[in-house]
């Protein structure tokens, strides 16, 4: 264990470095993490608000999906997976 003085010096240097790294990481990954938190909150809020639309959507997804939105999503998937970067 370091002496009190050395601990404060080392600890403060590490803390400043950590805060700097946090600022860097916040800029890089932050938008994804906080974007996800925000979208999650909004989605949950939307579900809690509109039960009628939600039930209709859930029913169409649970049963044989002939709805146009599902077909559109399928086409989108087909386009997406015809590309190069889609898993390994």
């Amino acid at each position, binding site marked *: 264990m*370091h002496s009190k003085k050395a601990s404060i010096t080392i*600890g403060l240097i590490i803390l400043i470095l950590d805060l700097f790294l946090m600022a860097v990481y916040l800029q890089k990954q932050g938008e*994804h*993490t906080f974007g996800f938190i925000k979208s999650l909150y909004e989605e949950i809020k939307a579900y809690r608000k509109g039960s009628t639309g939600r039930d209709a*959507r859930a029913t169409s997804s649970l049963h044989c999906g002939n709805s146009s939105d*599902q077909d559109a999503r399928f086409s989108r998937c087909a386009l997406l*997976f015809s590309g190069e970067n889609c*898993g390994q």
Partner: protein
Amino acid sequence: MALRIIEMIVGSLFVSTAAIRLLYALRTRTRYLDIAVFGFLWIYVTTLYTMVLGILGLLEAHRIAVISGIGLILLAIPGLRNVKQTITRLITRFRSLFASSDKRFSIIAVLLCSLAFLQLARILFHIWFVPPYVWDTVVYHLVNVAEWVQKGKIHHLITPVGRVYWPANFEVLEAWFVVFLHNDILVKVAPFLSYLVAGASAYAIARVLNLSRILAASAATFYLFTPSLAIQATACKNDVGIAAAYLLIIAILLDLLRNGGYWRRKLMIMAMAFCLGIGIKPYMAFIAPAPVLIGLAIVLRHRLLRGIRGIFRFKPGLSTSRIVLCIFLILGSALLGSYWYMRNLVVFGNPFHPTDVRIGSHLVFGTGNAVQYGPGQRGSASLRGLWENSRSLVTDRIFDQHDQFNSSLSNMTGWGWFNFVCGLSALAYALIFGRQFRLLIISFILSLLALLTFISTDPWYMRFTLWFPVVFALSFAFLLSNLNCKWLRAILMALALLCTALNWIAVLNVGEISVDDFRRMMQLPALKRSTAELTHHYEVAYRKTLQLVPEDEIIGFCFPNNGWAYPLYDSDLSRRLKYIPIESMRFTHSMKEHNVHYLFVERITPEETELIDRAVREGALKKIEEFLYALKES
């Protein structure tokens, strides 16, 4: 279903008893190490048992229950005293993990327990409600599992997906959790157990390195919250299995370095872990520099060169049962470590099929023309590869800037908030001030560099490095243990806990599952939660196919070497599949020969599309959907 659950209990009791008996024979008498060793032995016994049953064609719930029942009687009755003793000992040791004597960190203990509870809740929720969803698992990992469980034996599949032939010890373990219920609802327990062993090993490493219990628990928690690892706890991919085996080896080696003792037992456990790991993925060999370096340090420290002969010398007093056990473990480990390579050598003439193996420019194994989706694996060392991989890691991936954390780790490390914010600086600190840590960190960096030398530069290679972030967590715990300033320590710990909480939030939906999917899965009955129901990839095609094709019909399929077969098996693995190559107009005859009346296609080539269209025009096939065709009855 009740019978199946009883069979599962009998099977689980048998492997648990066998693991306990094995622990009794191999225990290291170091409290923190034995917890991780027990977890590993459970996985080892289950994998070996399932593999033997699979090879013998006995991979079926009723048969396993009968065999397990007989085994249980043979094992439990004579060793009842040992089993009871060992269970009591394990419970005491488990309790001692939480009996903090370090009063200064009691609030931290509460916070760590809360975090652990949150993580556990998330993982259990994912296991129960979310069917397998990860690209690789539905392309090849779980396709193996589905086929083996369906046929009741381990056999090699006929499929266009070459990667299905890669070593599959982890899939064998996953098969254990599927075979009894004949349903994949519990399949994610396999990666979760490996995740726990990785955490227990991280704790053991921290304790070996002289960290207090609470700091060791902190290090293990920080490590377990690493997004790449936390996602893999429920992803059914096999890298978490490697992380568990590798960290256990490191923990035992460090224990040998510091404390010595029980050399034979520890060497045996390490050999077992290595064999299990090499049968999961060959890169276990690429990351060998760390164990080798620590091994050399042990030799130097304990002046073992003269003593090694003594370790392997036969002792006249050794009991027959010990010798039999030793031979059994050597044979079992040899089977686990070599089976897949031997099978590939016999079937394809290349133990590493479908990867070509080269030394320099000389082709050692393979055709020299390995076809893989994307760049594939190189199968040889390359300094250029090392440079490109290292540069990509340091300048780009480490920032995790391209996407939300997900199981594929596309162009990211997935090391997350804690490792970047708190781990990097702590690593530098430990490298400068931690004499004991220096060896570990340097050897881990060497292992990482060796790995980067061998693997291809593709967007997803960081999934091979799940074991590495443990050095960040250990370094941070070491830093805290050295700071003689309460408020500064508290601030740093608070920052670490904040980052860990962010790591937890960031993987709530594992980067792929929508709230709508979660909700829909929760509405479905537990045994009906099929991958085909998920909406993130091709949901319409798979669900519609399962609805349109009668249950007793074989589904013919044709897709490229990255196609999703697994959703077509359905959650109860009831659907039978048959690969129909479309190379000429003979494919309809092939369908008839194999009694296949339906053909599912996905991402087929223009040539294949042309042949199918021609078959439709000529009246041999009927188009039902864009992706589904039916054979017309003549």
